């Protein structure tokens, strides 16, 4: 009976797998979008599913086993992990890819929904999770301890479906390591999670040299349960791996063997020939229009090694977002399909192709009949304006106290933006909540209705937990709001300084979650953005000083000991009570023993 049951179970699963495999368990896509100022955004997306039942039965197919076991062990329902480096330049590049949902602040960011009965149990599982992930991703995630962990209340909403979850047994924990430098050792384990590793498909473009030379890059792993709408069918656990990077085309095109930006030979400079002084040795640079041509092998250093055989053939692996007017050259064995919107096209690669190359010529190289006046601005897709610009910096100077100022600008002419601003600050930045104020540029704080609508504040406990501050606020249309608050810097114990060079302490990026304008909605996030991280310098002892102090104290103790010892063992009398100290008495003192000696030496008359 049991055998029969297990056999039927097995056959059921194999059937399931066969079914799911055909219904696209894995797909990958690379979206390339040229940005202004000769930048190129490359978004890699890899997505695979496994049914929850298969997951719980330890049957892993596309879902990486190493990660799956960690998640099971730590009771994780949903996980989001981010490795980021650099800055997204919203002024030039516009809105963020994925509406900011697939990026983190500088360093490493991790948040997860854990299933646990109590807070303590959740903390324990969180510790397990961070330590295991630390080993898996070669990142210092194990340093996310109590002082760096917060439990956000408003900022994060689960992305997946949690039908069985209740508020009491699901815990959201959020940890961030702003100082972690993301590098190749984090990319390798990331690629290992993919079904085709980095060997085939679009992942073959990913190379540490190019990825970490990018102006901005973000690696994300999102694991979430997804249930089909209407409650029919089985829920699946979906893992999505995303890499977004912005390459500087000029920098990327430099050969790997010679990456030094030597000055170009004079005749290769792009010059503005309209200048009256333009000549052979005088050149006003026209760099902004240069470098609009590139090919995959130029910017990534290699071509795409075919397609991953496991990927869903219905999803085109490479898409390019340029206006339809621009021509694109592709290698044999690929098919170009233009989309309806007129600004993007996708390429299907035939399975037997071994190398896929894509070349975007510069607009000047276009055939003359295609190039008309006024087309220069249309060379690239105009970036979408983001909903909000945010800029955060420190104010004040000195080692004792300081302030934080966040400038929030709403570019929209008619729409108000409502969002949640979240800061998780280290405990040694003690903020003065009463100094927190928001004002619209050019007005005083009391002039208008309150911009801050709701504040959730959890104060820091020294050496135990950091400050958590969540502010729900709004920025009226076409205005700039300054959100400021002051803080005091605490003095650390000398053992609390990290042993490396004292650069200062990084303060994690603020997370801004823009809420959907529809008030009846469940207040879901429509757009996320993060500010840059900050560097907070604390009063630092000069560590050569303890050495000096040791010397000084030793000397002082030696002197004091000598004096004390003397005082203890000697008897003191006032000067006039004691014997007269004078030259005469000294002479007497000298003479008496001398006489005695003489008396002994000289044989007296007997």
């Amino acid at each position, binding site marked *: 009976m049991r055998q029969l049951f297990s056999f039927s179970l097995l056959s059921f699963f194999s059937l399931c797998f066969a079914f799911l495999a055909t219904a696209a368990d894995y797909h990958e896509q690379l979206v390339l979008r040229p940005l202004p100022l000769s930048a190129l955004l490359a978004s890699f997306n890899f997505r695979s599913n496994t049914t929850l039942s298969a997951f719980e039965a330890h049957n892993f197919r596309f879902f990486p086993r190493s990660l799956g076991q960690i998640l099971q062990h730590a009771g994780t329902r949903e996980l989001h992990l981010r490795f980021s480096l650099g800055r997204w330049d919203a002024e030039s590049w516009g809105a963020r890819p994925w509406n900011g949902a697939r990026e983190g602040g500088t360093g490493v960011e991790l948040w997860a929904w854990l299933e646990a009965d109590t807070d303590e149990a959740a903390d324990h599982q969180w510790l397990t999770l961070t330590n295991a992930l630390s080993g898996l991703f070669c990142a210092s995630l194990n340093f996310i301890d109590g002082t760096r962990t917060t439990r956000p209340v408003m900022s994060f909403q689960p992305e997946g479906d949690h039908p069985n979850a209740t508020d009491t047994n699901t815990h959201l924990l959020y940890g961030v390591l702003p100082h972690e430098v993301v590098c190749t050792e984090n990319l390798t384990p990331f690629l290992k999670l993919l079904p085709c590793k980095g060997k085939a498909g679009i992942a073959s473009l990913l190379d540490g040299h190019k990825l970490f030379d990018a102006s901005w890059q973000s690696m994300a792993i999102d694991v979430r349960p997804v249930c089909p709408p209407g409650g029919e069918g089985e829920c699946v656990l979906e893992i999505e791996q995303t890499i977004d990077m912005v390459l500087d085309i000029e920098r990327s095109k430099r050969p790997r063997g010679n990456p030094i930006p030597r000055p170009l030979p004079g005749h290769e400079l792009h010059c503005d020939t309209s200048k009256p002084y333009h000549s052979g040795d005088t050149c006003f640079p026209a760099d902004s229009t240069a470098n609009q041509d590139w090919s995959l092998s130029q910017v990534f250093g290699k071509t795409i090694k075919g397609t991953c055989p496991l990927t869903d053939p219905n999803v085109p692996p490479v898409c390019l977002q340029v206006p339809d007017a621009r021509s694109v050259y592709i290698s044999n064995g690929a098919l170009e399909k233009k989309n309806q919107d007129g600004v993007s096209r996708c390429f299907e690669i035939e399975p037997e192709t071994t190398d896929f190359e894509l070349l975007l010529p510069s607009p000047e190289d276009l055939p003359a009949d295609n190039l008309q006046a006024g087309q220069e601005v249309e060379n690239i897709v105009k970036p979408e304006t983001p909903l909000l610009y945010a800029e955060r910096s420190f104010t004040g100077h000195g080692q004792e106290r300081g*302030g934080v100022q966040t400038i929030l600008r709403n570019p929209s002419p008619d729409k108000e933006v409502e969002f949640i601003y979240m800061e998780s600050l280290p405990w040694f930045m003690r903020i003065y909540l009463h100094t927190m104020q928001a004002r619209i540029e050019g007005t005083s704080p009391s002039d208008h209705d309150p911009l801050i609508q709701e504040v959730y504040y959890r104060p820091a406990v020294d050496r135990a937990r950091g400050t958590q501050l969540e502010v729900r606020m709004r920025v009226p249309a076409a205005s700039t709001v300054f959100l400021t608050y002051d803080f005091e810097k605490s003095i650390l114990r000398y053992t609390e300084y990290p042993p490396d060079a004292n650069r200062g302490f990084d303060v994690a990026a603020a997370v801004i979650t823009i809420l959907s304008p529809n008030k009846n909605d469940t207040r879901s996030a429509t757009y996320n953005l993060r500010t840059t991280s900050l560097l907070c310098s604390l009063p630092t002892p000069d560590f050569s000083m303890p050495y000096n102090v040791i010397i000084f104290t030793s000397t002082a103790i030696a002197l004091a000991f000598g004096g004390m010892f003397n005082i203890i063992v000697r008897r003191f009398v006032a000067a006039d009570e004691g014997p007269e100290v004078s030259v005469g008495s000294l002479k007497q003192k000298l003479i008496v023993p001398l006489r005695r000696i003489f008396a002994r030496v000289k044989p007296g008359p007997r």
Partner: protein
Amino acid sequence: MPRLISGALRLRRDPRILKLPPYLSLLCILVGAVWLFLLPLQEYSRRTYISENALLPGQVHTYFGGSDQHVFRAYKHEVNALAGKTNIEINTELESIAKGLGLKVSRQNFTYTSAGHVYTGENLYAILQAPRGDATEAIVLVAAWKNAKGELNRNGVPLLFTLARYFKRWSLWSKDIIFLVTPDSIAGPQAWVDAYHDAHDSARVDSLPLKSGALQGAIAIDYAQESRFESVHIVYDGINGQLPNLDLINSINNIAGGQMGMGVALQEMWRHNDQYPDRLRTMLRGMLKQGLGLASGPHSSFIPYHVDAVTLQPFGEGWQDEMAMGRVVEGTFRSLNNLLEHLHQSFFFYLLMQRERFVSIGTYLPSAMLVAANFTIMAIALWIKSGQRERGDDKQDKDGKAEGEGEAEGKEAGKEVGEPSSASVAVEREIFLPLGFVTACQFLAFLPLYLFNHAPDSLLTPLFTIFAILNTLLPHVISSFLTAYYTPTTQQYQLTKSFSLLLLGMFLSSLATLNFSLSLLVGLLASPLTFMRPWPSSPAMRIACTVLLNAIAPTAVLVASAAYWQVGVGEVLREAAFAWDVYGMYSPVVVWCVWWPAWVAGSVIVLGRPAEGRGKVKTA
């Protein structure tokens, strides 16, 4: 040990000890002055060295050059075309250049009012965001449109933009680079740095809309010279005598002198043979600049915010071109980029006497401290003396001799030392008048301070003339007033002098740790005050002392130095008022509130006519 103590106690009562302080004071002054002149000797100064290993100056190849020169020429054409235009027009044009390079550009308005003049302008700055970095740290490259002498920074501004374009190509920057163009060399950078650290008065100076991280260093280019140059002049004096970290100067020295093979000059010593006279001259020039505390270039404003900064000025006729200057800046920026920590390793208090020789604070500080200590020694001696009844006074009381003979008696008393009984008689000190007088002098000092910092430019010279005349008459007026109404005694004169010197010694010794040169300068100029005393019997001495004091009066010194450097007194005062209003130079406070009250007290004491009679005798 107890014997030693009792011996010391006995010694304390010895009247010979009280004869010692004037000689001790004189010795302090002499040793202090001689000490200073020993510093440039090979044995007392040290060779500079790079203390921060992360800097690695001169270890990288610099690639700036080649076709960058073509770009430089184009930018120079642009800058030349802008010469003579208004600040706003210039900034609009420069902004378009910077935007074309892909930098984040912003502007800042500022207005300062000083001595009736309004200094207004607009700063332009552009941020090159570190390609892979976050906005946590930044280094600044400054080129003022007009340098400190008012010349157009003809090559500096184009070089700044050429370097910006060049730096943009590198991906190795770990810190943001901020390019700052200011209309002038002092007020513009000051407004910008103040606003960057939110220490500005927002009514006069705009806040910065665009910011980066903590500033780690700044280099200013002052390259107004048209022709090719030979050497680089490093200007490093900050406001109020503060100095940048020595490592920064050493790095530039290493890069320019070692890697690029240029000469490096300090303190306008265009030729330096590394012998004693040249070293001394360099050191004294440095001390004078430090003592004055004036801003010497665009870098000066950064130093009070603990941002190490220098100005680089090419000079001389040689074969180095703009690209070489650019490579010096490139090398320095690569070194600063290496920094993991803020510059803190090397010295902040030093005197440079050649590009590779310096003395650190431990070596030179005793000089100023000794000079300051001489006042304190004298003050303590006078306090003790005023509490003791001298033998001469006893006789005076008994015999009722004329007051004029008091001094002669004093001398006799000196001969009759060795009689311990006379010293054991103590006198009650009448401290109200001396204390009141010294306090009044200190408060009176706020008058010239306020007057010269707030008077309009046109009134400065006449006001100063009137003040100088009044200043000469003031001691006479006070003295006759005191004699007429209070008839102060010798003891009260002694106490006045004691209090006045005590304050002076205290102020100067604490000032020595902040601004060594200013303390030493004021200390030396005020040193005759230690030896001033009433000359009731000798009108010749009194007149001689008065003349001497008037020759070293703050006003006289001001006039003399203005004449020496061939500038008008009004000009000096206007500059001082500007420095006070814009960047908070505190030298006027030291002159008017430390030196001047002591001088007034000293002058009054010289003119004093001590009355007979002392305080009540009480037995010790």
